[in-house]
């Protein structure tokens, strides 16, 4: 058990596994996304309330979903960094934070554009959008702190503390933003929450969520490999790898 754990922590081992996984992640992910989005855009029936604008859901929900789970993953990795000092966990946080920020931004952007035909305005201080905005701030904080500390180990641990503090706060932020929202404007009608979504809608949605997850996996492997190359540049196996002419 402990052996497996140690192996998991070895950058060299991870590098190899990632290399074999990456083509699968990328191509299966792309296929799923194309299927989900194509189905959603062209074949899924119209929404009876919002018309065609709801078709944004097939990228809005995957982005929003992933944006939140990336932060959770970062928190788990942060805990691993602090408790077991596993290098790979920190590599993960560093590699993934910009991806999470981009996904959060996409969720915000698509949410805002969706709001225009639905509410007649680009931005409303809706509970979901506001929580997403705060999540984006949290991501920026993580990225900025990681960039500000030059020492690798200190940077890893400081970021881990910040991510954990953030993850404790996320439910509180969500709850308070929802409470604040009801205080100011009783919710008229919400994005995405439908009494019952027909299968022609949720199946493509599920496909694109899965697809984006896999593509995220590919991006993560790629970025983690880069980070590992930078950090382990002086070890023999990286030198051999570089000499062997990897790209």
């Amino acid at each position, binding site marked *: 058990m402990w052996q497996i754990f140690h192996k998991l922590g070895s950058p060299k081992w991870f590098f190899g596994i990632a290399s074999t996984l990456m083509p699968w992640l990328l191509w299966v992910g792309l296929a799923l996304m194309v299927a989900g989005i194509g189905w959603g855009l062209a074949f899924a029936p119209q929404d009876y309330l919002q018309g065609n604008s709801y078709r944004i859901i097939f990228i809005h929900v995957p982005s929003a979903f992933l944006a939140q789970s990336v932060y959770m993953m970062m928190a788990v990795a942060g805990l691993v960094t*602090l408790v077991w000092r596993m290098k790979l966990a920190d590599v993960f946080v560093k590699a993934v934070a910009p991806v999470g920020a981009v996904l959060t931004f996409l969720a915000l952007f698509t949410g805002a554009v969706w709001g225009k035909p639905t509410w007649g305005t680009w931005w409303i201080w809706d509970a979901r959008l506001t929580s997403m905005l*705060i999540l984006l*701030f*949290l991501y*920026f*904080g993580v990225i*900025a*702190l990681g960039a*500000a*500390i030059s*020492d690798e*180990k*200190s940077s890893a*641990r*400081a970021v881990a*503390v*910040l991510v*954990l*503090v*953030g993850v*404790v*706060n996320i439910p*509180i*932020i969500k*709850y*308070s*933003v929802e*409470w*604040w929202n009801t*205080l100011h404007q009783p919710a008229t009608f919400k994005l995405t929450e439908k009494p019952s979504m027909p299968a022609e809608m949720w199946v493509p949605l599920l496909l694109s969520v899965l697809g984006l997850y896999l593509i995220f996996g590919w991006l993560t492997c790629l970025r983690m490999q880069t980070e590992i190359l930078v950090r382990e540049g002086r070890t023999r196996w990286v030198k051999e790898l570089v000499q062997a002419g990897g790209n």
Partner: protein
Amino acid sequence: MTAEFTVNLRSPDVSVGTATAMKAVFVRDLKIALRQPQDLLNPLLFFVMVVTLFPLGVSPEVSFLEQAGSGILWVAALLSVLLSLDHLYRHDFDDGTLEQLVLQPQPLFLLVLAKSMAHWVLTGLPLVLLAPVLGVMVHLQGNSVAVLCLTLLIGTPVLSLIGSIGAALTLGLRAAGVLLSLLIIPLYIPVLIFGTGTVMAASEGAPVAGQLALMGAFLVLALTLAPFASAAALRISLSNS
């Protein structure tokens, strides 16, 4: 040729208790601050000035101020706490006091808690005391002023405690001040929401006991968790210096 020595290790019972050590930290911070009263006054002046900006910048009409007053006061209080955070550990870090603090045998998170409490007494508490005057200036009605002070009384310690984490994390970094705000403001949002929301509910005559209890829960949560995070962050920052 090595001689035999008996080492007289210090036993736990001759050491200073945690409560005494905490009190010493607290008293020292207060003493230093009182020797430099100008530094105490600055966040207060900042608080007053930010509040003044709103009638000048937005509208001096009573109807607007009544509506926005609690929010204005809370935002101003939040910013002025934020402004003072940079100093929380900076001087101690620069002159080496922080190293000695970390090397004290007592649990670091409790010493950090003592420092956070000193910070609150020096910045948060004066803001609470000043708030009624400004509350009247932004036309908050009688009951709302009392509720505002109550929310500030419960909320500002949370600001100090959470802020202490950010201050510890950004210790010794370039442009620490801006970075600190970036890290901390998102974490302050729940306190701000409940702080202003409670006052607004009170001005509409709604019961506020529930919200106040919830803010109390925030305070308890911050008191129990924040010092651990701050202590961990301090160790990391010192390790890096």
